[in-house]
């Protein structure tokens, strides 16, 4: 579904990615693992076109999307849940969802479907997003991305700072997406969540792709975990 080949990218003169590549299939959850500052967020931003790649390509279902202007990338069907949620804080819950719906021209039925997945948001449609609790904000950030009816879903540390029940909800959402055939790229720090949720794991070290292994292999042998994330 989505293929990343040898991307190199950075911020102005600062180079961060020196060759990152992986692919994710329909109905698969691929986890990106790496230490803080390894370049996981930058990788997702490069996929979204927010950071222009200096080399390499991103291909979505056969179409090279890394040459597109950034605003045309999400329209191809990529939903993005950024690190730190990045809600439009002064807009209401309903307006945040509306922005998500506009991206691919989705309507009422999509909105209903998303609100069924996150009923708490329905009670708070007129509330300013900035005043939601942390957990509710994460629900909204996820719901906003689901409003695209994405083919590919990018989640950047969606469980950061959440309590167990909320983590469970995010996890169920990811499983639902996988069951619906969405390709999911998940950046996650908690190893046990990675091991139980991921189909495959791609390691990133200092802006370079390292081994890509199945979660089953990783569960059996933790040397890679020790090597790249130090646990």
């Amino acid at each position, binding site marked *: 579904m989505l293929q990343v080949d040898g991307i190199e990218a950075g911020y102005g003169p600062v180079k961060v990615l020196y060759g990152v590549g992986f692919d994710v299939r329909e109905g698969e959850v691929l986890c990106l693992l790496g230490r803080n500052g390894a370049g996981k967020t930058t990788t997702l931003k490069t996929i*979204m*076109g*927010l950071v222009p790649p200096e080399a390499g390509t991103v291909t979505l279902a056969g179409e090279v999307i890394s040459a597109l*202007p*950034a*605003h*045309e*990338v*999400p*329209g191809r069907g990529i939903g*993005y849940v*950024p690190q730190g949620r*990045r809600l*439009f*804080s*002064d*807009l209401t819950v309903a*307006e945040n969802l*509306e*922005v*998500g719906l*506009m*991206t*691919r021209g989705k309507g009422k039925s999509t909105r209903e479907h998303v609100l069924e997945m996150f009923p708490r948001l329905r009670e708070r449609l007129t509330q300013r997003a900035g005043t939601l609790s942390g957990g509710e904000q994460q629900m909204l950030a996820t719901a*906003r991305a689901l409003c*695209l009816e994405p083919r590919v879903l990018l989640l950047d540390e969606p469980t950061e700072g959440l309590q167990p029940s909320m983590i469970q909800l995010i996890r169920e959402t990811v499983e639902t997406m996988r069951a619906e055939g969405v390709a999911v790229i998940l950046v996650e720090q908690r190893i046990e969540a990675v091991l139980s949720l991921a189909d495959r794991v791609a390691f990133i070290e200092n802006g370079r792709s390292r081994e890509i292994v199945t979660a089953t292999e990783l569960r059996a042998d933790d040397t890679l975990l020790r090597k790249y994330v130090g646990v």
Partner: protein
Amino acid sequence: MVVGAVPRLLPGVVGFAEEICITLQAWSFGAATRLRFQTLTGNDPGMEFGPHLLLAVLEGAVGAAVLALTALGLSLVFGVMRVVNVAHGEFYMLGAVVAWFVASVIAGHPALGFVAALVIAPLAAAVVAMVADRLVLKPVAYDPEATIVGTIGILYILQQAALMWFGPEARPVEPPFNHRIALPWYDWAAGEWFYPWGLSTTSYKLFVIAAAVVILLAFWAVLTRSRIGLIMRATQLDRETALAFGIPVGRVYSLVFGLGAGLAALAAVLIVPIQQAHYLMGGDPLLLSFIVVIIGGLGSVRGTVVAALLIGMSDGIISVFLSPTLSKILATLLVALVLVFRPQGLFGTRAA
């Protein structure tokens, strides 16, 4: 300050005939009122306070109305694009100059030319602004410092272009209508309604106030209720995330820069029948807009409107009763106080 046919004040005259009264004044709210007041105090030092307050409030409201529109354009551009548009006053000037061209080309009743100017001048200013956005601001990637230098360049280009094609003269635009409206004031001594000092305003001035209110409400409705308004607000709040949800931020910036210029031009079309078009007229609205936008909070629509009312009205009133210089001193002092005690402005939110 050139003042032409200032309405003469005939004590005790009731019911003025319709009269075209063109007051030529530079941008300085309440200048006409001030003159009237000086004449009055000369004649009658025991003047009552009430009627004059009413007049000062009206003059102040005209200034506030036009200032609100102009400052809103500046605030919108800063809010969404983080660009300090030093050329904002020149788009205002452009609006006035185009209004003059349009009005002088269209024959017939002055209202025809005026209505045409009301449509054409803001559009022309918007197009020029959008071209400037593409040619100047986009190439420097909207860098905050580079755009200040860039807009200073736009300022001089527009100003000199106006000097070349429009000339150094001040040129009037005829108002679409301009009935003299005497202000009713109940005279206690006489015990009946009459107009004791011939205090008057014109129907056109009332129209300017009403038009500005309508435009502000329409702008508010577009910003809060429409899809394009949602897109602009989302872009303002988080440019990168807006991109990640398919919002064409580059096009939104062009549109916003055009809209900001259009608002300034619209304000100028409204004021030009009272004030005259001149190629240097952009300086004062720029300064006052900055004052308003700093006090109101950059990027806050509500704050901008409230601060424009505050500055416009108090400028009108203080100028009439005390002195125009004092009014400018107080406004500047207020800016200093706001910057010290509430740098985000009265209604602004702290930058995240």
